[in-house]
């Protein structure tokens, strides 16, 4: 692919959703529902088709890292040695894979939204925001300059903010949107500072003209172009404090976007948005942008083992934490939100140990089954009249057969048995056995996450769909209409089959995504990546992982479906009494941040308001007390008499004339 083709195709992928957003937002309310539905979905469909064209081009090209970079326009040029940024896009295997998920899963969710938002008066606004999100996400993954990446990064946060607060009359939605946005800004600032550090420190030995002896001293490059950064990443030092700091800042950006500890508290609240939003943004795409970021900056992370190790630990820690919290949440969407957090933790763990392709594999399959779970949950919520508490559900499997079967497929895929999650999770845990900090310590934790996942996935399935209905709404629930079922069925098909297809013929070891993506991570300038386990350790790991998943599932089925196992007595023991409460209250993170950060800041603001300005004002009070005559004149000014304000004119003129005369006199 040459640069102009790349620019054209990437431009189209960006343009279609942007145009769709503008059409829906500006003239959608006038032209009505039918237009909005068409414009909102066709724009994404068109972007998906263009993405397929790009995919075919990349696939058809020779092997190796197929990276094409093109400049769309100059953003800012402040002269040599200063900030120079152009709007560059890059197309390679990594960005294509991301684009396929963004536009493909995005298209399914947009179609689903036509049904879900049918009775909402704000549908035009909804599709406008959703289209804008697709645009932002595409910009983020296509960007080939760090400033442009940050612009995409922030645009994603903006669309997330708009969609979380979509029902803006609800106070809780407004606060959730604000919380999400401000957390994202923490990430933005971290990225900006990382960019500044790179800009200041990146250097290269200038090319030597032939037949000349060169001093060979490295010179600062002063660039933020991603290909340049990756090519010269080693100039930042291998394992140096500088590159460690840069990578930690990048990771903070990634943690904010991917809802990892300690910047995770916004994601559960983000469930205030409409359910398709949760599926698209807070499960399939946006929250995985952090994984993408680390994978994209792999050249830097390869050189910073301490930062990578931290990333891996945070990822695995979040996976455990979120899995633990998911065990006792009662809101159907929040359970899935915590499971998302947990699964992304695994992805972050994977990219932290250098198993980038494994992380992206998990991203791809997770996008299918998590979008499936959310959309199916959306059908449930619709059917039980906007009830989200799973204690009010139950017995829905006979009332919503298709949704229930699809949800079961999704739960199995999530828990890692038979379907999608089995392949990707065991793959990345296999890498964890022999790579990364403290391996196999984190691997053993990862095995524990498998048990947790099986537990909370089938607790959710069992409580929602099995047993007897526990409310009137659940008793009267009925299946959703076709437009909301087909996307769910397609996603169920993808969740069930994608792993088998990509992994054919064996369920462990190298897969097609590995083959597709590894050229990116082994391209010149990259460091060493994680080694895959040998055959028999791999098989052993696969069996262990699968067994743990099955243990989790089996325990869950006994507790929440067959009811022949009651954990309440075990949990009432003194040592364990605290656990359910910690889990239910999300480990008190919200309360902690509120006490440590929000309240003190507010109090400081109030205190300054009371003290700051009055103190700084005090000298002026002194002046005005002395000049009481002054103030009396000012009072009379308000009467509007000409002579009063004339006197002020005179005052100024006199002061000025004296000055000039003084100057003139002294000059002679």
């Amino acid at each position: 692919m040459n640069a102009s083709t790349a620019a054209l195709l990437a431009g189209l992928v960006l343009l279609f959703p942007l145009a769709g957003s503008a059409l829906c937002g500006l003239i959608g309310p006038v032209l009505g529902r039918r237009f909005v539905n068409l414009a909102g979905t066709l724009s994404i469909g068109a972007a998906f088709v263009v993405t397929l064209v790009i995919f075919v081009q990349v696939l058809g090209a020779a092997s190796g890292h197929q990276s094409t970079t093109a400049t769309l326009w100059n953003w800012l040029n402040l002269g040599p040695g200063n900030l120079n940024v152009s709007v560059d896009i890059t197309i390679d295997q990594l960005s294509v894979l991301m684009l396929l998920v963004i536009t493909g899963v995005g298209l399914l969710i947009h179609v689903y939204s036509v049904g879900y938002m049918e009775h909402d008066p704000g549908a035009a606004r909804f599709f406008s925001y959703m289209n804008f999100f697709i645009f932002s996400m595409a910009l983020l993954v296509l960007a080939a300059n760090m400033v442009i990446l940050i612009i995409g990064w922030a645009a994603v946060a903006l669309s997330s903010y708009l969609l979380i607060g979509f029902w803006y009359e609800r106070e809780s939605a407004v606060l959730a949107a604000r919380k999400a946005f401000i957390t994202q800004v923490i990430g933005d600032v971290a990225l900006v500072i990382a960019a500044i550090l790179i800009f200041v420190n990146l250097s290269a030995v200038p090319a030597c003209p032939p037949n000349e002896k060169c001093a060979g001293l490295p010179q600062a490059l002063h660039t933020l172009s991603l290909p340049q950064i990756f090519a010269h990443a080693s100039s930042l030092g291998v394992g140096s404090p500088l590159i460690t700091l840069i990578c930690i800042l990048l990771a903070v950006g990634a943690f904010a976007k991917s809802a990892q500890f300690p910047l995770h508290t916004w994601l559960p609240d983000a469930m205030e948005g409409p359910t398709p939003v949760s599926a698209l943004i807070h499960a399939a795409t946006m929250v995985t942008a952090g994984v993408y970021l680390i994978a994209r900056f792999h050249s830097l992370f390869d050189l910073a083992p301490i930062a990578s190790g931290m990333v891996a630990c945070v990822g695995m820690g979040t996976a455990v934490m979120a899995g633990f919290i998911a065990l006792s949440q009662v809101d159907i969407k929040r359970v899935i939100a915590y499971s998302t957090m947990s699964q992304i933790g695994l992805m972050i763990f994977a990219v932290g140990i250098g198993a980038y392709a494994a992380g992206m594999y998990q991203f791809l399959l997770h996008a299918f089954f998590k979008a499936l779970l959310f959309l199916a949950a959306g059908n449930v919520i619709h059917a039980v009249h906007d009830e989200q508490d799973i204690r009010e559900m139950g017995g829905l499997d006979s009332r919503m057969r298709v949704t229930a079967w699809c949800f079961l497929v999704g739960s199995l895929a999530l828990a890692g048995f038979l379907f999608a999650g089995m392949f990707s999770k065991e793959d990345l845990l296999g890498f964890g056995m022999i790579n990364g900090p403290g391996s196999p310590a984190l691997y053993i934790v990862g095995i524990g996450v498998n048990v947790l996942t099986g537990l909370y996935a089938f607790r959710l399935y069992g409580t929602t769909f099995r047993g007897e209905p526990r409310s009137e709404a659940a008793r009267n629930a009925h299946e959703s209409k076709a437009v909301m079922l087909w996307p769910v069925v397609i996603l169920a098909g993808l969740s069930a089959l994608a792993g088998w297809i990509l992994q054919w013929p064996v369920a462990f070891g190298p897969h097609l995504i590995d083959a597709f993506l590894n050229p990116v991570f082994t391209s010149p300038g990259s460091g060493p990546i994680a080694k895959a386990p040998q055959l028999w350790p791999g098989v052993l790991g696969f069996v262990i992982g699968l067994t743990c998943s099955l243990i989790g599932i089996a325990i869950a089925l006994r507790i929440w479906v067959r009811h022949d196992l009651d954990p309440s007595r075990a949990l009432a023991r003194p040592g364990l009494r605290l656990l359910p409460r910690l889990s239910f209250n999300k480990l008190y993170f919200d309360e902690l941040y509120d006490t440590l950060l929000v309240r003190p800041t507010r109090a400081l603001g109030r205190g300054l308001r009371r003290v700051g300005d009055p103190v700084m004002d005090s000298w002026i009070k002194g002046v005005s007390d002395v000049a009481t005559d002054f103030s009396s004149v000012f009072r009379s000014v308000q009467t509007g008499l000409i002579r009063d304000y004339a006197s002020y004119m005179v005052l100024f003129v006199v002061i000025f004339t004296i000055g000039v005369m003084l100057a003139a006199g002294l000059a002679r």
Partner: protein
Amino acid sequence: MNGFPWLTAILLLPAAGALILQVIPGKAADLIKGVTVMVAAAEVVLVAIVVHGVATTSAIGGGPLPMHYVEQASWIPAIGASYHLGVDGVSAWILALNAGVFLLGALVVPRRSTERLKLFCGLMLLAEAATTGVLISLDLLLFYVFWEGMLIPLYFLLAFYGNENRGRATLKFVIYTVAGSLLMLLAILYLHFQALAGGHNTFDLEVLLQNPLPVQTGVALPFTTIPTLSPAMFAFLAFALAFAIKLPMVPFHTWLPDLYESAPAPVLVFFAGVVSKMGAYGFIRFGITLFSGPVHQLQPLLVALAILSILYGAMMALSQTDLKRIVAYASISHLGFIALGIFSLDQNGIDGAVIQILNHGIIIAGLFLVVGVVEARTGTRDIRELGGLQKRMPWLYVFFLVITLGALGLPGTNGFVGEVTIMLGAFQYFWLLAVLAGLGVLLASWYMLRMHQGMMHGPVRAVTEKVQDLRFREGLVLAPLAVLIVLLGVFPHPVGTVAAQAVPGYVTLADASQHPVVVPTVAHVSALTEVEP
């Protein structure tokens, strides 16, 4: 350029407009407003031609600061004062901002208050003429005349047309600005006499720059440097005080919230959009160029005040309940960014400051216009009483959203361009500054969203129950601002390029190492003190 005195034309046009208004009968309100708007529009066209000229032609003059459209004539030969005008990459976009924001201000002059409308419009036009003069004067005395001249019409506008609290607010404003201005005049005289001692009877900036003040570096101690108190230092402090008050920098800011609270909408838009930028402009053109030695010695203090402005303004904005006061403190915080960029004395930082001057002018004008519209509709500026406006005013919501995002510096809006460039410049001076500025960015998203969501979201309240959406004319005023916020965010290239043309000259001048240096060492000082008794 063709020899046509473009700068004199843009200087005189508003003043001529003010004169024309005097022959119109006071009752013809539509005509008065029409003429004002026409003059403002014509000014925009003229300034656009000038900016285009600056962007496309190369500067003339071999001096340290090459200028465009230079006009020079003798003014007061006895003291060497001259009528010396010029424009460069630093002032070009500020001129454009001046003309553009004034046009918006003229458009929102309420026609209903026919009472003294003629005086109002006349004073507005005079204020515009004066700010234009400030931006194009290359003679210090001429600059001072316009600097003072700018205050007089503004003072009357505030004293006559402000709301019920105007007395206190105007008093504060006058005390502050008179204090600053008088000291600055003394400093200008000092510079004049220094030049005179060197054989130049002049107030001309270019001549003064070619004969720099003797520089004393501070007394070097371990870990720190004590600034020396030279006459040059006092002169700089005098200039700095005048500019710091106008900018304003904490702790010289307390006049601003009171003033913004009481000013009428058109004056407020012009004041916040343009007049506050004059302090920043003054620092760039006169502060860091004429006084490179003192600036370098005081640089730690100056950047500390800039950071203080950013954080203090942000914390105050977070705790206010009055919309105008929130915006006023937000403005102080944003202007702190501009000051930070300037005092980084780095090319990226100063480029960023120039870019941010333009961008902040656009954003703050938009914010005050929105506040004005909301206050006119609901009768309140108390954020606790507002809510649910998005439902009633969807078009206002769209514009306000864009303006809010610009104000919190979202990447992709114009607010980000200046901020990131400034942070880059500040980082190169001292890394911690960029981190603290980042904290300011974080707080900005907090207080802006608190304000935006407080007004727009939540259930519809009693005061917002019956409000109407924007009228077409109001939309016409807000739309260009919203468009510019996005446009200059995705394509800041024209602004950056014009600024980057001129800024290297300023950076060179600010670099004290270019000048002869007298270095008193610790031994030196102790020797002096030993001799003393």
